[in-house]
């Protein structure tokens, strides 16, 4: 393993192709191997960069099995968070954060935006009529605020991932560049691979040609976008300029040749990434690639949305085929439904564990990438059957580079999500004091200090 790292660090571009073929031939076993290379830039950084990952799972939780037992620093996970056992020092559970009240839309629709932006939705006609319909979110999300600052140093200012995420609407979007500008998450692991790693397969000459061709096309397209934008009224111009901005960021990436000293992971044989049966495999493929992208310093900021708010995902591999949203409406007295919801939420905790384990395989400084990472796992609701926003279940994970004292079971007085969002911005080096258009206070979450 170490030997591989050493050799690949020297002749990386040439080796990457051979390496992939080799690993491909190993098949399933290969996926289990820790394949993370350590790019020079990261290795040279004394402690490694800070990274942040926001995770979303839908339809609320079952608090009795979500809350750990015990005290603030001496606690035991109950059923839902039991997959995190053994990593207690890397986990902080916060009971008491709430989505700030206000704005149009049903609570399912509001949830992802309140979790990520502490902000209201725009008016619009998504999701029924009358006063529960809404548009998209009205504010930049925390990940994008961070991406604006730290994202400029990496090829991808941020990565937005999803697992069986669904169509284009407010319930399936957790990241926003700006008001009314939701970011489409990638939920196809093979397309993600192509996007992040495909070019690594090319030899230097073809890569140069590809780059020159793409830049030439971008020149032409940019000119056309600019001219149409200049002629358009404000609303259309905003759209076209957003398009232009994206084209330019791709252009910068091509010009800088970022990512060339990175080794592609293996994604194995193609499976149907939308099949219910493959949900876990797809989720893990996304997480593998996320960890690799961060290890290669392709990005330091990411979001991942499991399904979407109000998701009716079924999880046949858990042994039942009930739809998640319908289950979440069952009353507390329905023990069978409660048990299934516990298992679904436990599954997502297991995926968090998977992510933590992968991060912990990447050596960085004196520790691992997990030490430098903060993971924030949230939800659009507290309880599914009462649609409550007060509180909502929040789990922090990772070492957070020592910025917060982790390993705590916090039961706090009801506090708006905005405080936590400010804490995450500050963790990533920003000095913002407030965040979101429903922010009623200032500063980070006091309980974390």
């Amino acid at each position, binding site marked *: 393993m170490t030997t591989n790292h050493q050799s690949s660090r020297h002749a990386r571009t040439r080796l990457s192709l051979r390496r992939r073929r080799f690993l491909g031939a190993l098949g399933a076993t290969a996926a289990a191997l820790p394949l993370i290379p350590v790019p020079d830039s990261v290795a040279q950084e004394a402690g490694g960069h800070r990274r942040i990952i926001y995770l979303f799972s839908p339809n609320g939780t079952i608090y009795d099995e979500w809350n750990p037992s015990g005290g603030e620093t001496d606690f035991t996970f109950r059923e839902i968070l039991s997959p995190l056992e053994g990593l207690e020092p890397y986990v902080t559970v916060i009971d008491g954060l709430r989505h700030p*009240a*206000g*704005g149009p839309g*049903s*609570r399912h629709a509001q949830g992802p935006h309140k979790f990520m932006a502490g902000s209201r939705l*725009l*008016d*619009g*006609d998504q*999701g*029924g*009529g*009358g*006063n*529960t*319909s809404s*548009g998209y979110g009205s504010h930049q999300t925390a990940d994008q605020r961070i991406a604006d600052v730290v994202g400029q140093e990496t090829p991808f200012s941020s990565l*937005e991932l999803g697992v069986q995420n669904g*169509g*284009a609407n407010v319930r*399936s979007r957790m990241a926003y560049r700006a*008001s*009314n*500008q939701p*970011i*489409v*998450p*990638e939920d196809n692991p093979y*397309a993600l691979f192509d*996007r992040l790693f495909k070019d690594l397969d090319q030899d230097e000459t073809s890569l140069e*040609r590809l780059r020159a*061709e793409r830049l*030439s*096309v971008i*020149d*032409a*397209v940019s*000119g*056309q976008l600019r001219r*149409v934008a*200049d*002629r*358009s*009224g*404000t*609303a*259309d*111009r905003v759209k*076209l300029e957003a*398009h232009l901005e*994206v*084209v330019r960021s791709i252009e910068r990436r091509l010009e800088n040749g970022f990512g060339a000293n990175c080794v592609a992971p293996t994604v194995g044989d193609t499976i149907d990434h939308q099949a219910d049966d493959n949900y876990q495999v797809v989720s893990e493929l996304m997480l593998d690639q996320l960890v690799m992208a961060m290890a290669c310093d392709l990005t330091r900021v990411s979001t991942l949305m499991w399904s979407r708010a109000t998701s009716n995902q*079924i999880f046949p591999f858990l042994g039942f085929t009930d739809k998640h949203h*319908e289950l979440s*409406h*069952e009353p507390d007295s329905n023990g069978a439904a409660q048990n299934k919801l516990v298992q679904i939420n436990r599954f997502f905790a297991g995926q968090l564990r998977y992510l933590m384990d992968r991060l912990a395989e990447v050596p960085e400084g004196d520790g691992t990438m997990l030490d430098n990472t903060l993971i924030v796992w949230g939800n659009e609701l507290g309880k599914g*059957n*009462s*649609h409550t*926003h007060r509180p909502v279940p929040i789990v922090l994970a990772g070492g957070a580079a020592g910025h917060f004292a982790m390993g705590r079971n916090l039961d706090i007085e009801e506090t708006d999500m905005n405080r936590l969002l400010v804490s995450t911005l500050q963790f990533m080096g920003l000095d913002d004091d407030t965040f979101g258009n429903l922010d009623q206070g200032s500063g980070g979450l006091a309980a974390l200090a």
Partner: protein
Amino acid sequence: MDMRLHTSFRAAAPLAIAVAAAACTGIIGDGVEDGSAGPPGSDDDTLEGFSPLRRLTALQYERTVRDLIGVSVEGAAVLAGDERVGPFKSNVVAPVTELNVEQYMAVAETIAQAALADLGSLVTCDPDDIGELQCGDRFIDDFGTRALRRPLDADTREEFRQVFAQGRETSFEDGIRLVIQAALQSPYFLYHVEVTPSGDEAEGSEPVALTPHALAARLSYFLWRTMPDRALFEAAERGELSTSAQIRVQVERMLEDPRAGFAVEQFIRAWLHIDDMRELAKDPDLFPEVDDALLESMAQDAARVGDYVVREGEGTLDALFTTPYSFAQGPLAAFYGIEPSDGEVPVILDRDERAGLLTQPAFLAKAGHSDQSSPIHRGVVVREDFLCQPLPDPPPTVDDTPPEVDPDATTRERFAQLTSGPGCAGCHRLIDGVGFGFEAYDAVGAYREREGDLPVDDRGNVVGAEDATGEFEGAIELSAQLAASQITRRCVVNQWFRFALGRIESEADERDLASVYATFGDHADLRELIVAIAQSRPFITRYPGR
């Protein structure tokens, strides 16, 4: 800019919601957390029209590439999902993000590479004969004009020449490939660009006529869901799209084309919410014969019947809602218990069991649970998409789990009990009275007179729906009641308008729509409706953006 978009979308609300939601939300009261005032700085009072820039849907992309280049690509597999306007796919709100643009880049590279396999069909000149540069120029003009759906301006032509030169460093073919790649990423290809060369700033706030090429593209994406053909391009170039009579000639020509059949089928599928049957699962113990293939064939038959009525048959709303045509073969014929049709001439199903669109099993199965019918889903679709009266979401505290199946009570009895509570009844009197009318059809849309040992009660009552209001017995009577009503006819006009323009109607459209309502209200002739929409002022003009 949020304000602008959001203003234009809200503009639909005062027109559409009026009756149902007012009655309904008044009872729900504080079902949501607070009021629905706009974000800071919004100006909800201004309700001028606006024609938002629209981006091709995945399906439009796929069909355009096929017609432009002859290359097959599955749009839905390589492009991110589409937004919807009402029930129809249309990308009008969110701008593209990095993922979209990288998808466009990747798929353009794949398509351009594939196009080289049959270069002769795209490049009509011989570079050995007239020289590579000249042949490249000719290709840029010919292909570029079709790809961008307009004559090239000097800047754009020059940009493509630069791209061609870059590719030609490798070879002539690579020059061509790169021009294709660039054209497929041009905003003129990816969006329905309708702004005129003089720009919106110069145009004030009154609606302005579309350029002939923009109108040609509107017609083709309305009627065909793809780019204009040669004849339409030529009509645009010759200025033959400038009168209502000329537009009629084109529309009638285009409706004869199989591409129009595809578009009408898309309309029907979206309208009935049956455009994706894959997400449907029926209880395999109760319905062992119902698999994905049968469900999809139900949707295909519904769409094909709709197209048949619109383009070949009577062409009236009445026929669409009351004549039980089917092209059923194979498992679908077995499902109906009929002799298979020959696939060409429609058979007429038992008129005591089926009427038209609203008795299509695809609709009934889609708006049904896995193990029982769903009066609520069925009622909501009728209310929202056939009466154009949007309903609010259930209040946040409601438990909307379907009741347990119980052999001692009918579905109707179980649901009626569930929705009669004080927080529910306000809206459900608008929903259930319609939905119970479909009780003669089970979870998969099969006709039934008994539910287990109990007789089916499919009497219903439409309330708060203007001239569609009134009691009825069964979905067949309901269908006739709706087809004859002005409120449904107006709704049908609105739905075709949304399908045609890819946006919600606004107050600025009201006066023009009123005359379409009046005409369609008299005869309910669907072919004439399509012509009338294509001739209407909102269709042949655009509101400059601000």
